[in-house]
């Protein structure tokens, strides 16, 4: 496939960026690791590619006065894997970043781009005019759906491709979204869109808006987190199943919990029933098994992806078991 023609601009300010984005079919270029592939494969088109690579204010990673961490949207995935502020307070985020793609792609890809990336469904990426591309049919429903979602699908059965997003949801992180008008702050949990809410989009970003930063709440005492990913290949592969855990312990019991799955649903998938089951409890085999089973209670597998149910149960149980007696 060849790269289609487009015009290319590198604005020097956000204001200038917004004016470029307001002109017709424009796309934001940050690391470009996903955008260029999509353009080359004809997943979508762009008349104008707006590079935000000169916006240095989007590159900072800093601790704010209230103890929270602000990560500029252009911070690379590689930076997240080894930044002191991230490694110390938010290990699940560092672990998730390390599970992303390959070293080259982590050096180039950004946290903002990772959150806004397009799904990896092979029908969406391939020469199939599917519902997400404006067609009338989801080819995964009766097709090769071994890697597709078991939760949250309707009319489209993608899984959300990000490893970083589930970790951010587990931390209760937010994103800053800037546009020509006012800048808004949205929990990462509310950033993503289920197919039933809008089958052709993945995030709530409106045309002309830019995701400018990720905000992590201050890390607290007694707080433990982790991310683990099961994949078909050791590098450069998306999750078959993944789980981000963020647990508060108080006197040996779970005082608060977030369990968020990757590879399960079209968005990072929280498991509120499982969280309820473990909250207030000290983790033992019985509680863990119940929590793992509850996470899959709503699962609706298709012909080829039923294996994911037991895979997720095993994965969640194994990850929770690491916190027994901690």
């Amino acid at each position, binding site marked *: 496939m060849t790269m289609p023609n487009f015009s290319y601009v590198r604005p020097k300010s956000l204001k200038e960026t917004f004016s470029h984005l307001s002109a017709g079919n424009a796309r934001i270029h940050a690391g470009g690791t996903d955008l260029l592939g999509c353009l080359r494969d004809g997943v979508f088109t762009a008349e104008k590619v707006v590079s935000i690579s000169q916006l240095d204010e989007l590159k900072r990673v800093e601790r704010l006065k209230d103890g929270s961490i602000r990560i500029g949207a252009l911070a690379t995935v590689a930076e997240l894997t080894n930044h002191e502020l991230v490694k110390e307070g938010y290990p699940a985020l560092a672990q998730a970043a390390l599970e992303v793609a390959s070293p080259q792609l982590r050096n180039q890809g950004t946290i903002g781009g990772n959150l806004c990336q397009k799904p990896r469904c*092979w*029908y969406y990426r391939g020469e199939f005019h599917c519902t997400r591309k404006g067609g009338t049919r989801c080819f995964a429903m009766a*097709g090769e759906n071994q890697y597709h979602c078991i939760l949250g699908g309707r009319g489209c059965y993608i899984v959300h491709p990000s490893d970083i997003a589930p970790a951010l949801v587990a931390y209760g992180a937010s994103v800053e979204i800037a546009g020509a008008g006012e800048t808004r702050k949205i929990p990462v949990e509310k950033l993503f869109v289920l197919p039933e809410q809008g089958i052709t989009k993945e995030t709530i970003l409106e045309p002309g808006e830019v995701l400018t930063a990720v905000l992590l709440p201050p890390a607290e005492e007694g707080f433990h987190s982790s991310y683990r990913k099961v994949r*078909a*290949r050791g*590098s450069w592969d998306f999750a078959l199943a993944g789980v981000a855990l963020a647990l508060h312990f108080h006197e040996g019991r779970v005082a608060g919990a977030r369990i968020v799955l990757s590879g399960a649903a079209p968005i990072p998938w929280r498991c509120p029933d499982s969280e309820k089951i473990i909250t207030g409890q000290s983790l033992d085999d019985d509680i863990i098994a119940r929590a793992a089973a509850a996470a899959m209670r709503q699962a609706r597998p298709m012909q080829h992806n039923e294996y994911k149910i*037991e895979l997720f149960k095993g994965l969640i149980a*194994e990850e929770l078991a690491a916190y027994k007696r901690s």
Partner: protein
Amino acid sequence: MDALAEGIGMDPVELRLKNIPAVSQARTGNPPYTSTGFRQCLTDGAKSFGWREVRSAIASSNKDRNWRKGVGMAGGMWVVGGGGPPATIIVKLFADGSVSLNMGASDIGTGTRTVMALVVSEELGVKPDLIDIDNADTATTQYATPSGGSKTVPTESPAVRAAAIHVKQQLLAMAAEELKEKPASLTMKGGTILSLADPSKKIKVTDVAGLKKQGLIVGIGYRGPNPANRAINPFAAQFCEVEVNIKTGEVRILRFLSANDSGRVMNRLTFDSQVIGGITMGIGLAMTEARILDRNQTGKIVSGNWHDYKIPTAMDVPADIVSVPIDSPDNEANTTGAKGLGEPVTIPTAAAVANAVYNATGLRLTSTPISPLVLRRALAAMEKGTSKQG
């Protein structure tokens, strides 16, 4: 083979050792092999791997863990690998003692050029760095068959040797005149020609008047036919240790060992490189690679890119790969004693992995790739079966 061995309560290495054929059972007339180092592949491989010890120790290490260890082995032979005509090589020896080797065959990263230089060096006593190689150029080199079928070394190297011998014959004839000896009573050693009977009678190659006068000697070598009514095949035995997560279906390959009989080991570095590369490709077959069609709808391929068609990465291949070369020149096969290496390495790899997974889990998988998806399905089927019985 593994199931057969288990069925009769025999070690799978032992079963293979008891069944090594001296003749090809698949070919008409059952021709004998020119050589089979399969026995040595099995015994040397098992010994280096610590097969018996590891196998008996591993079962007890698996109690109460999600990650279960297992070991497996498999044997293999490659259907071709003997090479054969045509191949035409031109070797030129210049008056300054340097050599030019002209060859049609390509070096696709396998070390062909290195191996051919070593053959010339061995025959003419010239240092490899004095040998200039011109190859795989349709304007300046001879017709050659493609580099495939693990045949480049056994096809080309005998022709290289023949061309070098052709040069040597002419050179020794010139030197014989000067030393007043018969060509047959002369030998070459490190750039010097000397009498076998009286080593004090000698002359440096660069001092041979005939060569100086002529400026160069041209030798041509052709690949002769393979021996009639013989089968020429490389053999291999491989051993591996894996770890399988019985909850998630993940497999980690902890180490691999490959013992290969490919006749003479022409060069250890490139030999080992072929072994490591072959195991890597074999792991791709075993674990990650699958061509997937949209079979119920459009018939189009859905895994038609390098993300969805998953070749293994450095993270899928163990750091601990051991090559055990069985260095046994096959002098009946050809004049360099080499058989093919490359594809033969990939033959037993997936089977060894599958047998190790069986050893770890009790799951007998007979198709590839052995991915978490496939293993998770198999585990579910086994769990179901167990609960029914219980």
